[in-house]
């Protein structure tokens, strides 16, 4: 295959060779891999974008609580606050990004339709960061799709070099990976070079290494949903740093290797089993009781 890549190094070489962006390589790679036309590949991504947009729209309107009353209505609170903006983060882009990210998480918890980008647990970060920033600099629809393709390419590299499953690598593999993906996508949307995209992804992923997956009752709600909001803001910050001229000291491929090493040394208790961390606190056990789960230990 002409456009195959497993690492950032290979992808950067492809970008140089063909003199194009990461998103363009990702598109050509998918077309080559599946034997479909570029336009069909782009339509596939458009569908993902539309589903994410619907999930955001539904989520910011809804004040409905989830089945076990663990989440719901927070996206709406943030979205309402946009009109007055008395918050410390007196900046519409970040507050809106948080609102959108939470909206997707809440939609997911209420059994609405979402795109698992890269997984259901981290599905809010990319729409949060990308949609809010696209609104800010009035990006065209194509520009947004380019960001999404770049994000996917980063996701493929993480999946190849480490993992995208919290059962294997904890939350660093879900919200962490999503944050790195969003940061790179955003940098490309802003006109950054392929190298800059990887610097943003590396800076973002480095800050999420070792994050535990310890949700209350094993449900994808607490702390997952709010973690998505902070992930979206972190992605924007990482992209800002790089656009300001900062570079990551550790190259992206090495960060992925580090992530894999940390995943292997993580205890099973904090890998989506609800047997450690927040899941076994007093509050965590209350939720377990409600769900009829066995209580093993309390912190």
């Amino acid at each position: 295959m002409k456009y195959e890549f497993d690492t950032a190094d290979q992808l950067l070489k492809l970008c140089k060779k063909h003199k194009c962006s990461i998103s363009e390589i990702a598109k050509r790679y998918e077309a080559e891999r599946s034997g479909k036309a570029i336009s069909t590949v782009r339509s596939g991504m458009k569908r993902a974008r539309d589903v994410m947009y619907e999930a955001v729209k539904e989520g910011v309107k809804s004040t409905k609580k989830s089945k076990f009353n663990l989440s719901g209505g927070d996206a709406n609170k943030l979205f309402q606050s946009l009109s007055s903006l008395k918050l410390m983060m007196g900046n519409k882009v970040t507050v809106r990004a948080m609102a959108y990210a939470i909206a997707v998480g809440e939609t997911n918890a209420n059994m609405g339709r979402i795109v698992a980008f890269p997984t259901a647990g981290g599905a809010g970060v990319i729409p949060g960061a990308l949609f809010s920033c696209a609104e800010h600099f009035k990006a065209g629809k194509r520009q947004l799709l380019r960001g999404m393709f770049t994000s996917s390419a980063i996701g493929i590299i993480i999946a190849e070099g480490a993992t995208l499953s919290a059962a294997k690598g904890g939350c660093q593999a879900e919200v962490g990976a999503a944050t790195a993906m969003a940061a790179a996508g955003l940098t490309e949307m802003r006109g950054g070079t392929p190298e800059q995209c990887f610097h943003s992804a590396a800076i973002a992923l480095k800050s999420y290494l070792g994050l535990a997956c310890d949700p209350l009752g094993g449900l994808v709600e607490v702390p997952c949903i709010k973690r998505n909001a902070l992930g979206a803001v972190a992605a924007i910050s990482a992209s800002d740093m790089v656009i300001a001229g900062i570079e990551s000291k550790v190259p992206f491929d090495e960060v992925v290797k580090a992530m894999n090493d940390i995943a292997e040394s993580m205890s099973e208790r904090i890998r989506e089993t609800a047997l450690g961390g927040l899941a076994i606190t007093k509050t965590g056990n209350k939720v377990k009781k409600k769900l009829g789960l066995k209580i093993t230990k309390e912190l």
Partner: protein
Amino acid sequence: MTQLSVFDVAGPVMVGPSSSHTAGACKIGQFARALFHTTPTKATFYLHGSFAEVYKGHATDKALISGVMKLRTSDPRIKEAFKIAKAKHIECVFKKKDLGEKFHPNTVQIVLENSSRKLSMIGSSVGGGVIEILRINKFDVHLQGRAGKYLSIIVCHENHGSKTFNKILNRIKKLGIRIINTQTTKYKDKNLTIIATDGRDNKRITIKEVMDIEKSIEGIEFIRSLSKLEKQ
């Protein structure tokens, strides 16, 4: 190299909350339905391991029954699965059952029946919406499923020699379908064969062609194509 798709990362499009407990469960249900072929009057689900522990919180029960009713993993009606099942007169039973240690924690045994037939199947959801089918009736099999990759034909046939089997293969080849490999399991006087076909550029088998094969070749108990399950 596995050659992941961009849409394995930017997807699947699914109804929440969990890719393994909701989307995967729905897909296992779809498989059972495709193997049974018609709407059952009764569906019994034996939940094993983590499925038995947390199925309520992740709506695994709704997702399973949705799959049996042919809903896609992205269908928002999964939420109202029980209502739809009632309207379709499908009796749903959920039971906890330990299927044994050799199975993945996210495993379910599905038994579908109507007045004349019964089908039992065991499937596991192994993460990220990817599933495996491990038993069909009494036959141990290994079938992996992911969106867009179910191009298998499943045949249950008699096993006196390989006469019936060769006839089936020849018929499929004649239809212009390329066979990648076959996997046969024996149980008493019956064989179950999974025929993997290549659907990339070639023609795919239609339901009518499948039914024709079932009618015209002797010694087939049932033959099913899973190509209908493709798009998610």
